[in-house]
């Protein structure tokens, strides 16, 4: 948008901020709208059902995953169950992890894990909320498998050479989340306090938890 305008009481023109409709309407956008309208017209579901579902998806946040990580740090039996079946472990905590199976991979002193979806943008939305824009970018998706350590360094994350960097490309039926290492000096913290340390990015694997 190169169009500029100025306000009456402010002499300096500034560029017009594009409205959401100013981007191109793609075929898929038109098709999505058309199919949604048809399904509503045919009363397969109502407009309110659709709104509610979108609101529900938007309401997910990394706090759900963080609670599970904190519980896993405190309770080895829970951790074992979570590594076996994340969705069932979530249910124990009354967290809805959705119907797509999620696999938790554990960071250790020998292996640092990080997730990507090179084909599209698969992401464990039920436990981590909506993905950040960079996760969906072509740069992240193509470069993470090609030069993972360079990408991690751009996130400020330096993994020692002796530690294996393992990229998980979620191309098929699973979603992945990282179970980060519990930082040192947290022995006296309870579950809520620990959950507060666990960020979205450390569950994607582009950073580690550092309390210094």
């Amino acid at each position, binding site marked *: 948008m190169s169009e500029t305008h100025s306000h009456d009481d402010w002499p300096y023109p500034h560029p017009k901020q594009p409205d959401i409709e100013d981007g191109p309407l793609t075929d898929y956008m038109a098709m999505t709208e058309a199919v949604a309208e048809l399904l509503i017209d045919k009363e397969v579901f109502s407009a309110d059902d659709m709104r509610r579902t979108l609101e529900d998806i938007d309401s997910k946040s990394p706090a759900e995953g963080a609670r599970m990580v904190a519980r896993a740090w405190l309770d080895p039996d829970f951790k074992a169950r979570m590594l076996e079946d994340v969705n069932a472990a979530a249910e124990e905590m009354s967290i809805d992890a959705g119907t797509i*199976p999620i*696999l938790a991979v554990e960071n250790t002193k020998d292996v640092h894990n990080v997730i990507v979806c*090179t*084909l599209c943008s698969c992401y464990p939305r039920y436990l981590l909320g909506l993905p950040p824009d960079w996760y969906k970018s072509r740069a992240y998706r193509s470069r993470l*498998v*090609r*030069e*993972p*350590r*360079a990408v991690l360094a751009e996130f400020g994350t330096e993994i020692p*050479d*002796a530690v*294996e*960097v*393992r*990229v*998980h*490309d*979620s*191309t*098929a*039926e*699973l979603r992945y989340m990282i179970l980060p290492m519990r930082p040192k000096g947290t022995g006296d913290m309870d579950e809520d306090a620990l959950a507060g340390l666990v960020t979205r990015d450390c569950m994607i694997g582009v950073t580690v938890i550092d309390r210094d």
Partner: protein
Amino acid sequence: MSARFAAGDRVRVRKAYPPGHVRTPYYVRGKEGVVSRLIAEHPNPEERAYGRDGLPPIAVYGVLFRQNELWPDYQGPEGDTTEVDIQEHWLGPLKDDGG
């Protein structure tokens, strides 16, 4: 389950470029890896993408590749890896492919 491979098996991904909705990324085709886990059996998305039922279900495996195998000019340490989920019909035992 009638899965053909088990964890630890060395496999090679088919080097094929069929048209359509394919979930096997280009960068692993023709490459050698090791099965890390049997994930599950799933209806075939290559069929389901075109309105068919995708049955019988196909086993999907986690396959671990050394970065040095995927990218001959890989700059990082030897031990670095990438794990990709791959359907059974994309995998062959290593010996079948001269490996």
